[in-house]
């Protein structure tokens, strides 16, 4: 048996402590240990982006990061972003553009887009198109997601 480790980090603005096996990924820790199932897992090998979270301001795939690597870091998930209102423009745009069908990939796209808009509120449409190519969606055909992120970017820019 391998070690069980105590681990402390900030989760959606709150100091959090858990104990985990080293092989626990961030995605599994969120879903199983912390019961935050908004971070979905579609491939477990870093391809689909459904499990995208934000670590210290950067988008990261939670299935390729071990929980033990989070020690002292700041982790944000879809639940936190939805609660603090910071992705309201994105949420509204996703609904308006019908960018949500089954919704399984939605958290990942929202978190990815949130990270992009935070890092560059003046992100251009072409960069948004490239951004959206990072994650997989099997329902929408991507057009609505592209349009939604562009729309939210416009709203965010106006507010900035």
């Amino acid at each position, binding site marked *: 048996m391998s070690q069980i480790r105590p681990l402390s980090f900030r989760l959606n603005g709150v100091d959090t402590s858990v104990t985990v*096996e080293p*092989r626990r990924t961030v995605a599994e820790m969120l*879903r*199983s240990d912390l019961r*935050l*199932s*908004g*971070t*979905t*897992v*579609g*491939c*477990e*090998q870093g*391809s*689909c982006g*459904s499990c995208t979270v934000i670590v210290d301001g950067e988008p990261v795939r939670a299935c390729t990061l071990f929980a033990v690597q989070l020690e002292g870091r700041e982790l944000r*998930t*879809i*639940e936190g972003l*939805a609660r603090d209102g910071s992705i309201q423009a*994105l*949420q509204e745009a*996703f*609904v*308006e553009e*019908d960018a*949500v*069908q*089954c*919704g*399984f*990939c*939605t*958290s990942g796209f*929202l978190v990815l887009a949130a990270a992009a808009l935070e890092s560059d509120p003046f992100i251009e449409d072409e960069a948004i*198109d*490239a951004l*959206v*190519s990072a994650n*997989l*969606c*099997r*329902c*929408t*055909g*991507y*057009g*609505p*997601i*592209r*349009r939604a992120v562009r729309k939210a970017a416009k709203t965010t820019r106006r507010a900035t």
Partner: protein
Amino acid sequence: MRHLGRPLPRLEASPLVSGRGLFTGSMQAGDHLAMRLVRSPFAHARVTSVDVSGALALPGVVAAWSWSDLGDLPPISYRTGDTGRLDGFRQPVLASDLVRYVGEPIAVVFAEDPATAEDAADQVDFRAELLDAFIHPVTSALGGSSDHATVALVEQGFGDVEHAIASADIVVELELEVGRQAAMPLEPRGLIARWDGARNLLEITGAAKIPHIDRDLLADQIGRPASRIVLAEGHVGGGFGARGEIGPEDVLACLGALRLGRPVAWLEDRREHMTAAPQARGQRHIARVAAQDDGRLVAMDVTFMIDQGAYLRPDGLRIAELTAAMLQGPYRLDAFRALGDVRLTNKTPAGPYRGAGRVEGTFVRERLVDAVADRLGLDPVAVRRRNLVAAEEMPAARGVTLGEVPVVYDSGDYALLLKRAEQTFALERLRKRTRTRRSKGEAVGFGLAFFVDRSGGGSGDGVRISVDDTGTVEVVTGAADLGQGLETAVAQIVADILAVPYTDVRVVHGRTDAIGFGQGAEASRSTVMTGTAAQQAAEKVREKALAAAAALIGVSADRLMLDEGEVRPIEHSDAPGLPIGAIAHALRPDRAAALALPHSPDSAGLSAEAWVSLDSPTYPYGLAAAVVAVDEETGAATVERFFVAADVGNAVNPKLVESQLAGGAVQGIGGALSEELLFTATGEPVAISFADYALPTADQVPDIECLITDDAPSPLTPLGLKGAGELGINGAGAAIAAAIDEAIGTPGAVTHLPVTPARLRAVLRGVS
């Protein structure tokens, strides 16, 4: 506010944009056991031994079973109840003496957590003698029934094909293939089973698409009454046909819960999904078409072979039957024959995937039409136009059947759709521009494909509506939601009839304990069937409300109107109305009698039920068109523009329809250019992750341009509804193939989907 026909935002979206979706993996009980399958690493082998003792020795492992531990468990049966000739092709729950594909379950482990279960699965000792794997169904024997690999032949047709071909001006023969692909929903499959000893009830969450049918099948498999099983779906991360086909895993999870007395969660991982979930397409065709010099099509004769994989799934021979039944598409023919040969191979069993049989058939038919146009030097669009079944010929009997049901197109004005698509998308100008670019040396082309789809039909879809005291409406359906927007569409239909906002309509679906029967969400049926049932039940509720209000207000029902959730006299439309919630309150069983309201003891409260039965399905139709640029040096094809025009009879919510078209189209683009499940010569799957199976990414696909028409409402239902779920994907492969042909200036060049860069380079080498 009117709802029907408006592009309203979907009701389902709100929890999903906040991370509050309850997908299968999010619903584990605290004390569940994790179930893990041990799967065969061999495509074909004789099992020598399966020893689970190593797994049992690990701390945290509760049980580990191989075939010998299962007892007398029947193989997975067919939904159709088909027995007899197909009995031998069913999949055992765990392999006994033979394994027949890589990924076939050979043992199962139950442990306290998924990681331990996976560790334990690695400890199961599996020994087997390798046998030759049968990977490529023999083409020379196509159509022959003597080969041991043939499961069944499926034949459809009418007229004298041989005579028609012999007397036609031209005959073209093509060999066409569609590679193996898969639905590949973003959420892998999963099932949670929990035996509730207090109520003697097995509760199952997960298998979606056809909850009632799946419940019945599972009840049979595990030998329990269906009434002692409840199947309830949560949020579903996409289905596209592949999810909800009962397989060994579903049976084992139920069995685990019953035998071990603990809730069991089976959550498939992606790698498992790639070898265990139903795969699709994998169809090879030898196709002949006969035509007259003026471009009139005379006959089609298609022999096709389906690479079924190791076993039949619960859908039996449905895909072969669909291919044969729908192959004619929108064209008039004097004679037609389709012969399908379903072959077993040592690969993952095939099953349904969005557009099953129609994607393949459309590719074949439209390639044939393109070949006729080329041979005769005619414009391919013009050849299509001249052969379309005319609006005046509707309803059009097609001389074939699907199962026992004759194929009769219910309605359609194909020529009008073509005309409207040409206008809306400015296709003539687009084709001209494409020609100009080509004349300047660019390898760019245009392609178009026409198709007819099939949606709904049959019996078993019902709806029960009840209104509560606040005026909120509950609509209980037997349908399922896989992300298509069922709740929104049904709410829109009901909202208009009961004059309430659609946000006040709660739609229940995917629960076998909520309603007696249901046909779920397959074959593009939910809006047609459940939508129609909802409309009829809502009308009954409305009548009941008006009758009760008439008694309460003292005005006859025919002089009352229902508007904005209130009943008021037509003559006094500005008078304060009686809210529908108040009527519901008055109709409560304990009050209705006291108030002397018209009520019936067997239909208490403001509620009603309706069931729909259609002798024949509806036939939506459409066309796909594409502009594709080819990089001739590398073989890469890029879809620059993609169009779908479709007639759905009556679009309940055009935005949701458009989303269905666009999403389907992009799956179709993937199937046309990049998605393929390849196997090595010894039967190992090449694609075991998303890194190997090239789903389209956003940068590979344009925004899909859609035209939704409702020129041909179905005469079969009052609202004229037709399904939209499988229209987007249907013509993509055919249209893209035609566009690539044109781009590289070689008619008939594309004969094999997907047109991967390597495959296209091979074509181009042959040309130069």
